[in-house]
């Protein structure tokens, strides 16, 4: 199976996992920072929202390093596209296109709704796949185990329900 991006073959999972471990450890050893992406959402919000939650000291100190790191993530995707055959804007959504065939406006609504769950959920949980799933689990932290089981469970249930039940409602005998 290949990527949606230029139908490229994927890196072997062992190399990808090792690279992510290296990023996590280098970030801690060099800069004394815990890997974590989702806190960046509230740090971006802190530039325009002024409730007490967004004026906390950890928001001000966190955004100084995390926002360049997040900009790097986007740049990494850009470099990957360029190196893999050229950058091009696309609406390609793989399996969801085959199942639903949403128009761009439908995809915007679908993704905005999904984003609400991601933004609210990760901040309520206190972390996402990187902060809980990689760093927290590796640091043997109980809340991270609880959250990781919860988001894997939530994801498995939702995808199973969508692709094994909902998308077949119209075609089932």
């Amino acid at each position, binding site marked *: 199976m290949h990527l949606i991006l230029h139908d490229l073959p994927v*890196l072997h999972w062992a190399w990808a996992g090792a690279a992510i471990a290296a990023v996590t450890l280098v970030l801690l050893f060099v800069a004394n920072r815990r890997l974590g992406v989702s806190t960046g959402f509230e740090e971006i919000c802190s530039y325009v929202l002024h409730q007490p939650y967004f004026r906390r000291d950890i928001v001000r100190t966190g955004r100084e390093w995390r926002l360049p790191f997040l900009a790097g993530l986007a740049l990494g995707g850009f470099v990957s596209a360029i190196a893999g055959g050229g950058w091009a804007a696309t609406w390609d959504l793989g399996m969801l296109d085959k199942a639903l065939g949403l128009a761009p406006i439908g995809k915007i609504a679908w993704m905005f709704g999904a984003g609400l769950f991601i933004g609210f959920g990760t901040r309520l949980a206190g972390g996402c796949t990187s902060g809980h799933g990689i760093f927290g689990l590796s640091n043997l932290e109980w809340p991270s185990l609880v959250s990781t089981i919860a988001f894997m469970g939530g994801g498995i249930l939702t995808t199973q329900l969508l692709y094994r039940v909902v998308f077949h409602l119209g075609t089932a005998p």
Partner: protein
Amino acid sequence: MTIFYLLLGTFFGFVLSRSGAADYDFIQGMFLFQRFQLYGIIGTAVALTAPGLWLLKRYGQTLGGKPLDVAPKPRHRGNLLGGVLFGIGWSLAGMCPGPILVNIGEGKLYAFAALAGALTGAGVFGAIYPRLQRPFKLPAIAIGTGQG
């Protein structure tokens, strides 16, 4: 240091882009138990980060000689419910937070809508934090739910 964070993020983003972690179909394949790829990636990352962290904590300091700061995150009821909500969002979007940014870089236009939703969700969360504190037993506002 800004350049260091930017470059490390770029490397991380490239790996996420090429590994399937920022690919809608690979995420669904993971949740459908049809693709091992993402389980292999997360499992390998944890299996290698855990002993690395243990060694770094034994060494006890950063490259610059500062005491290592690995304070654990607070435990609260949000860990469970927030996790479930995030899992639903991860499944629907086929992206977790890092890959939202990676997909924007790749040129997948719908990822901008996911980012807009995530910022709105995080903004609402922060705005109503005082009202969520009691039902979810969340820590004091200065601490928050956990950085990550």
